């Protein structure tokens, strides 16, 4: 084959730098790590023009599939293509094995904890977690007290955010136990990457993630109320204006289940039905992508039009399963997060396999004083927020921003935590002809039904802006395909 373009130019590495942060591709000896060698070689071999062509082909593919998300705040939610970096993030099978064990341990413990606080509260009696932390959490739902959910599984679908520290260890940054999103990006980006880098897939030996939708369906089926065989499973979406609507439609199609909105469902005699052209059809399991607050105007926010009146009573009557359960947000509260290692120890009598990030609770006077003295060094987060909103990154903040947060912390200390500014790992990104390192995190997706399933992969989010530590798509982040090797 004679390429028609200039083959002498390759992706530049001149702007690549290594410092204290862990680099996913290069080791301490400045040589590519074993599992990155194939990618590194390809980058040296492939002409730049060919790299650019592949990048463009991937972008076009995302565009045509309509893989977009909505950014709030600016004029009525602008729809944007999810930024995608061409170079995969690669994880070895040994690293993955630790992640898998760690996440399995964590989801098991958190499920036991949720079951406990909504029923017997032994862990609160024993002082594992202060009662105030649990009861003052805005995601605690007293309506869930004394009601056991099918198989005692509260969180069936989890997306846990991990980061890698300079010592190479993965730690948990955040548990997402409510309605974690992003899995559709993981699945669609893999399809695109297989087309873009077939040679690399063959060489590297990448584990498949294709069974995610099937596993999700099996998980939901396992939660069928009263063990009903062949349950009617639906995905409840807030509708087309929701930022994750693409994902809802995608997953419903992949699983072959009906995508419903609140107005499609109706409750009669504590049974949930969906309105079809062939009459009412009973619904058994709802994979709900609507937040607790909006799911039933009779029980929660009365002004919600997204939910289904009477749904919560049908749920408590045991006639329908909601997944995830209501009230799981109490366990991913950023203040409760600090207690997860103790929760694991208490319920499983094990040491955590994946560590937490050191966390200071502003509700504790001594810790608050410590943080307020060093605001320029810490990352301060509002406990109830997600998506990178309501956050102060000390080292990159202005004096006014720090003053603003000082005021906020002092007026509502329970609402804030602080963590040291972490040098989390960087991975190579292809940025306009040059390969440069950018900070990445990792969100694997855990499913908990009859068994715990973690598809080998996840969503690697990348802070595409130089120097930025914020990986959220709403704040200039993008994603990478994540390869777990055999």
């Amino acid at each position: 084959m004679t390429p028609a373009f200039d083959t002498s130019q390759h992706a530049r590495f001149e702007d690549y730098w290594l410092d204290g942060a862990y680099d996913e591709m290069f080791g301490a000896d400045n040589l590519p790590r074993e599992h990155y060698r194939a990618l590194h070689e390809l980058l040296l071999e492939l002409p730049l023009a060919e790299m650019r062509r592949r990048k463009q082909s991937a972008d076009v593919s995302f565009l045509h599939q309509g893989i977009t998300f909505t950014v709030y705040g600016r004029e009525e939610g602008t729809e944007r293509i999810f930024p995608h970096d061409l170079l995969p993030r690669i994880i070895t099978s040994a690293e993955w094995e630790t992640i898998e064990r760690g996440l399995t341990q964590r989801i098991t413990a958190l499920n036991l904890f949720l079951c406990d606080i909504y029923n017997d509260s032994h862990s609160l009696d024993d002082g594992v977690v202060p009662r105030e932390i649990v009861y003052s959490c805005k995601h605690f739902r007293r309506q869930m007290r004394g009601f056991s959910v099918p198989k005692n599984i509260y969180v069936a679908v989890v997306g846990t955010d991990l980061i890698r520290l300079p010592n190479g260890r993965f730690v948990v940054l955040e548990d997402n136990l409510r309605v974690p999103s992003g899995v559709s990006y993981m699945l669609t980006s893999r399809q695109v990457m297989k087309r873009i880098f077939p040679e690399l897939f063959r060489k590297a030996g990448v584990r498949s993630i294709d069974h995610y939708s099937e596993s999700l369906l099996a998980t939901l089926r396992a939660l069928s109320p009263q063990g009903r065989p062949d349950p009617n499973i639906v995905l409840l979406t807030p509708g087309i204006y929701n930022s994750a609507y693409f994902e809802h439609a995608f997953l419903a199609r992949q699983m072959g289940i009906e995508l419903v909105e609140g107005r499609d469902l109706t409750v009669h005699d504590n049974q949930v039905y969906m309105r079809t052209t062939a009459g009412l059809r009973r619904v058994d399991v709802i994979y709900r992508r609507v937040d607790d607050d909006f799911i039933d105007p009779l029980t929660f926010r009365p002004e919600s039009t997204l939910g289904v009146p009477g749904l919560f009573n049908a749920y408590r009557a045991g006639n329908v399963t909601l997944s995830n359960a209501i009230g799981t947000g109490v366990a991913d509260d950023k203040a409760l997060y600090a207690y997860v290692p103790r929760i694991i120890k208490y319920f499983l009598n094990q040491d955590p396999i994946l560590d937490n990030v050191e966390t200071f609770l502003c509700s504790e006077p001594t810790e608050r004083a410590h943080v307020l003295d060093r605001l320029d060094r810490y990352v301060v987060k509002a406990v109830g927020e997600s998506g990178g909103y309501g956050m102060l990154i000390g080292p990159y903040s202005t004096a006014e921003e720090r003053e603003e947060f000082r005021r906020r912390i002092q007026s509502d200390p329970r609402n804030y935590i602080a963590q040291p500014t972490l040098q989390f790992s960087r991975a190579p990104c292809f940025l306009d002809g040059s390969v440069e390192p950018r900070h990445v995190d990792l969100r694997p997706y855990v499913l908990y039904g009859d068994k715990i399933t973690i598809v080998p992969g996840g969503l690697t989010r990348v802070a595409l802006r130089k120097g930025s530590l914020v990986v959220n798509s709403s704040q200039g982040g993008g994603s990478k395909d994540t390869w777990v090797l055999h």
Partner: protein
Amino acid sequence: MLSRVADSLYWMSRYLERAEYTSRTMGVHLNLMLEHDIGSGGSRWPRVVTALGSQDKTDGEDFAAAESYGLSQIVNSIGAARENARQVREQISSEMWEELNRLFHESKRIGAPERFRAQPFDLVHTACESAHLFHGITDSTMLHGEGWQFIQAGRFIERVQHTARLVDAHFEEFHRPGLDPASAAEHMEWLGLLRSCTAFEAYCKVYTAELRPERVAEFLLLNAEFPHSVRFGVERLGRALDAINQATARKSDRLAKQAGRLAAALSYTPLEEIMSSLHEFSANIRRLCGQIHAGIYQVYIAYPIEAALGA
């Protein structure tokens, strides 16, 4: 199929049909106006807006009012069709969505009031062409199941009502003693009626180019083979309703009877009788269509929960 999805498909299709016939009818009359109208256009615009379904007399009081009525009906119908499609994007093929979305964006551009006043035929042609394309794409890319049948039902119920209204309004004006359909001015108007239904060429194949009012009526109301005739539309509507009834296994006796009555009116009413009371005949068709529409809602979409649980 979810009732909401059926509802959106049905309305997507109705709105697109409305955009198409409004475009075509406006196009025909804008064209006729260029050579025939002096002054305000006389009775043309009240008649046209009535045929397009307007209930408000001021919509047709002069050319400017009728023009803005027609334009907003075209642009709004396209917008509503696309909004309905957007609600059920995962239920239709991506090719269908892309075509409708393309039409929507294009209609915003060429349907801007200034632009439309200067170049009205751009929008008129684009809307008709895109609607044809859309139906072709629908037929060749979508599962011909229940959803497709709701699209057919919406399309033909809208079309039948329009053709019936159009014929009615035209005959009231031009089918009167003392008027000669062969005179130059009258001939153009009869031609315009046929063209509003893309029927001129097909009419010629059946009856030659000699335009006789009772033949035009027969063709537009009773022809069994012409896709814009009332009878053809009613037959397709009935087929779609049958298929939906089978797919959902609902025993909707009333809906079938209403569709049957409509079909019978078109199959068994002698032409002379229709001609002697065309206005009533047209009104009756529209009334039956209204009942069928209500029936679709009662049986498939907005049925009372108690009734459904009792069944």
